[in-house]
């Protein structure tokens, strides 16, 4: 049960690119993905910037082969999951036990919203095809079926930590010899439901978000999907390009403080990070980079920052919130940011925390403001925290072949 779990491939679609390569170029060139709404139709379109994927549903449908009437959440998911599998280059996938663990916060809600407009006027109206894939699991199955994966399929929804938990479970399924290969991560499309939900909480920034800034005002919502392909040691040995990155640590803890807000001392975040270190057998000083949850809300950043201070003082790793590029992609962020963390390991780069002007006065450290290249990066910690106090941390490590 202590055999390593290798990362064989990654796939991403987000506001900064439709593939891993496009996302990497945007990260290196400090190109953020926020802007005025183009695809989502909302009453708030003039006021609230969002980080949309730059393809419409028809284009996504063409790219994936799914019908364009399907939920955008499924379309995004399939783009990234396909890329991850292709990237892994596993030739004999049919001979292996393969799993698909996806995560999403609202599943096919983008279609349900359309359905409800008609349905509320007359409950015999509304196109049923718009509501059949409402369930989170339906979105996962559309993608699993398109990928031809059926050995183990499930869906996790723990708000903004969802896809970190999906990757976590994927690794455990491999360690327990239930599957050989697992595609794990998450997806979410922008919906009016979530945009309005976060808006009622008064934590949506009307400008581009500024995580870990003293004058931060809130988050920008984003959309996208991110997956990793995890393989067992045995499977890794059969691959042409033998993977050299492992998922070395993970932990899931709960803040148990408030339904939406983090505790002032970030106890859940602290437990998740320290638990992941323990699982990986690492010391805080071993971590070279933290991909922060860093949403840009007053509450998250001070709680996360306080927990980091408690755990890492006085030697702080480099850190940044890549939500400054992608916005907060909710059920997808753990998957997208896991893939970014892997890019940091592969390329020896630290991506900057954009728009950071005034560091938070309460914190003794400052996230990176400029791209750093040629950095020795061996261990990366990726944080994903969510509503309901759900806190999960993952650690990816580079190993010698």
């Amino acid at each position, binding site marked *: *049960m202590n055999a390593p779990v290798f990362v064989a491939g990654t796939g991403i679609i987000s506001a900064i690119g439709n593939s891993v390569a496009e996302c990497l170029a945007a990260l290196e060139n400090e190109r953020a993905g926020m802007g005025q709404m183009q695809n989502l139709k909302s*009453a*708030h379109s003039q006021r609230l910037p969002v980080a949309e994927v730059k393809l419409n549903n028809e284009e996504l449908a063409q790219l994936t082969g799914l019908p364009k009437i399907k939920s955008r959440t499924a379309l995004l998911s399939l783009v990234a999951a396909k890329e991850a599998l292709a990237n892994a280059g596993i030739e004999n996938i049919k001979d292996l036990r393969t799993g698909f663990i996806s995560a*999403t*916060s609202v*599943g096919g809600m983008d279609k*349900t*919203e359309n359905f*409800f*407009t008609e*349905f*509320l006027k007359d*409950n015999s109206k509304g196109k*049923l095809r718009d509501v*059949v894939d409402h*369930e*989170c*699991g*339906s979105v*996962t*199955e559309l993608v*699993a079926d398109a990928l031809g994966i*059926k*050995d*183990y*399929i*499930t*869906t*996790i*929804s*723990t*708000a903004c930590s969802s896809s970190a*938990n999906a990757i976590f*479970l994927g690794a*455990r*399924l491999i*360690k*327990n010899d239930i599957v050989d290969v697992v595609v794990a991560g998450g997806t979410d499309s922008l919906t*009016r*439901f979530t945009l*309005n*939900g976060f*808006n*009622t*909480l008064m934590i949506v920034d009307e400008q581009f978000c500024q995580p870990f800034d003293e004058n931060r005002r809130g988050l920008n919502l984003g959309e996208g999907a991110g997956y990793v392909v995890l393989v067992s040691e045995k499977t890794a040995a059969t691959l042409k390009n033998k993977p050299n990155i492992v998922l070395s640590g993970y932990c*899931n*803890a*709960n*803040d*148990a*403080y*408030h*339904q*939406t807000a983090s505790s002032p001392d970030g*106890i859940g975040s602290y*437990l998740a990070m320290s638990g992941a270190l323990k699982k990986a057998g690492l010391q805080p000083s071993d971590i070279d980079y933290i991909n922060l949850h860093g949403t840009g809300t007053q509450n998250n950043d001070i709680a996360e920052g306080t927990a980091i201070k408690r755990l890492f003082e006085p030697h702080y790793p480099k850190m940044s919130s890549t939500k400054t590029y992608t916005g907060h992609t909710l059920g997808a962020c753990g998957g997208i940011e896991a893939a970014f963390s892997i890019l940091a390991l592969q390329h020896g780069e630290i991506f900057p925390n954009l728009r950071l002007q005034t560091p938070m006065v309460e914190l003794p450290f400052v996230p990176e403001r400029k791209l750093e290249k040629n950095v020795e990066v061996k261990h990366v910690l990726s944080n994903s925290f969510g*509503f*309901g*106090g*759900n806190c999960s941390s993952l650690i990816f490590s580079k190993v010698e072949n």
Partner: protein
Amino acid sequence: MYIRATGNISPQKTFGHQPLVDAVAYTGNRLACIEPDYKEFIDPKLIRRMSRIIRMGVAAAMECLQEADIKVPDAIVTGTAYGCLEDTNSFLSKMVEFNEELLTPTAFIQSTHNTIGAQIGLMLQCNNYNNAFVHRGFSFESALLDGILLLKENDASNVLVGAIDEITNTSHTIINRLGLYKQGEVSNLDVYKTKTKGTIAGEGAAFFLLAAEPSATNYAKLDGLHTFYKPDNIAEVEKQIVSFLNRHSVSMNDIDLIFTGKNGDAVSDKIYDDLAETVFENKETVNYKHLCGEYPTAASFAMWLAAISIKTGQLPAIFDSASNKKINKVLIYNHYLSIHHSLTLLSAC
């Protein structure tokens, strides 16, 4: 591993650990949970924000923990296919009606799929592992597998696992339009006699305390769990059942009782009818969905029935079973919409 305690709110009188004697009859295609007085289980300050499904889930979890005499479990794992539908419906309806203005946060906050597990964690001040599975007819089984793995990995010595799903007026209307429910006169007690298309809607909240170590109050041993997705044909279903038993070194002769997930729908019940002539031939099979209705996490109700049957050695009186043979080993086979199939094996401690 062991099932140490349970808590179950269902359309039957299952809450409060009373013997299950008389079946509650329903006319029409919708069964509704019999809800307890929540004040004993939930702080009134918290209850005011909770919709029905959250109350049911939290109360069933609390009853389970009380029975296990555990204040803070090592992990909390929930499964729900639909999540908190009433809150989702409420926020969505107002959003459409008021054109995205004048919305309040409570329904949105409570609509997330991890709400029930999170509320339980919050009430218990439990900082431990907390996860939520939302995969249609696999939601409960996924949560159960997560719990089993946590115990195997020695990352927990006890895990609270539960499944919760509700029917709301809206979901009932929509699923009815999708053609899943029976039309016209129907009683739950006669649902298997109808031989027509469709089933009856159900709901429930069932929680289990899984423990690595035995204790005097255990219900049953949880020996195995297996799920399979979209089998090609009945032969594959049979193959899966046989190889599942083989993996656990159990022969069909060892099984005293099989709970099968028949729901009265002539089309999807054919799988069970076919199995009755092959792998389940001459075995005592018991149906349970006349009691709880059909819903994606209904297998949790079957696991509760299996647990109490093993604990007493007999089927509850509600089944009018003629057999006096002691029940030691139980297999549960359930499928949801012929897509999600699950096998669970339990035995006496």
